[in-house]
């Protein structure tokens, strides 16, 4: 259930603890972005139909970011429209809150603070795909900041899996590959090894054709493509290994 205009304009909520407010969003099955501010920090918790699907704070994403946000004192809460996000959080909200409470009790808050600083992602799951290679690459992708969505296609151009619920780019990605192959013939070259499309809205679509599958990544405007490719290299070359979870 998306928020109506009145709810979006509700602005700052006072006198309600963050865990209580999160549980209220879950119970009411809200789809929204909860913006949490404390001192000069800002974090975002993304809900879809009452399910906490992702979080973002400073350098952290997913559960790690949710823990960091929960550790902030005197937060102000703002509700904004929902976003179509990758599912970086797979645990129910109750588990997240319980794990956070346990961590805080055990470490006196140091654990949550450390989680905020840590560069090691604590993601629950990347994709539920049965293929361990797909699952492994997806899990690697969701740990990289700046990637909005992923699309995995087979060599026939059919979508194997994608993270976006609403944006269908499979056919367009396939057409990009077809265009690249046509150009390759004209130029008498090999490839393409990479296709990078910049859009007027600032987003970038990075297409990486591989031996086994084609990966399309929709990137935020400020994301450096070369850095993304570098971070993905272990997963794409198989050095990260298939996911055996």
């Amino acid at each position, binding site marked *: 259930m998306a928020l109506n205009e009145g709810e979006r304009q509700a602005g700052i909520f006072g006198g309600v603890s963050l865990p209580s407010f999160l549980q209220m969003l879950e119970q009411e099955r809200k789809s929204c972005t909860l913006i949490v501010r404390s001192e000069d920090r800002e974090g975002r918790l993304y809900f879809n139909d009452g399910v906490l699907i992702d979080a973002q704070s400073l350098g952290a994403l997913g559960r790690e970011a949710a823990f960091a946000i929960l550790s902030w004192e005197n937060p102000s809460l703002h509700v904004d429209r929902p976003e179509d996000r990758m599912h970086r959080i797979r645990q129910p909200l109750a588990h997240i809150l319980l794990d956070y409470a346990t961590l805080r009790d055990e470490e006196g808050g140091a654990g949550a603070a450390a989680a905020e600083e840590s560069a090691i992602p604590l993601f629950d799951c990347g994709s539920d795909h049965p293929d361990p290679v797909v699952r492994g690459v997806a899990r690697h992708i969701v740990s990289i900041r700046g990637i909005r969505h992923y699309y995995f296609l087979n060599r026939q151009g059919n979508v194997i899996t994608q993270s976006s619920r609403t944006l269908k*780019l499979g056919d367009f990605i396939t057409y990009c590959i077809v*265009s690249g192959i046509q150009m390759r013939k004209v130029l008498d070259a090999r490839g393409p090894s990479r296709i990078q*499309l*910049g859009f007027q809205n600032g987003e970038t679509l990075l297409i990486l054709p591989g031996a086994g599958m084609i990966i399309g990544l929709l990137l935020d405007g400020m994301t450096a493509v070369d850095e993304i490719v570098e971070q993905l290299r272990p997963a794409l070359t198989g050095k990260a290994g298939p996911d055996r979870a």
Partner: protein
Amino acid sequence: MKSLLKEISVIPGVLAACIFAREGGLVCAEAGAGFPEDRTGQAALHFFRLVQMAGMNKLNIKSTVFRFDRYTIVCFPLDRGAVLIVVCDPQANSSLVATTAAMLLDDILRELGKSFPSAPWGNPG
């Protein structure tokens, strides 16, 4: 138009550049020795179709880079149903190529307007 393409082609690593229009086909090309002009035109046609496909998917392309083993192709959709493509050496500074091309886009469009005054405004798609 030729002089504008020359400004791009003098960048180190640029092998060829061309403008392809829906109306008129290959409008102008600037290719170095050993790189056939007609190849740039054919590559541009494929990019032109890609921009059309993007438009059908409500995607507004600003620029596109194709990386091959021997070449990097930097492409831009222009107004008036035209596209600009630049063929580079893989080691060329494609960022500089893209910035230079973006800087010249207004002048290229002005020249295109003289060549095709009747062509409609808007992306090729």
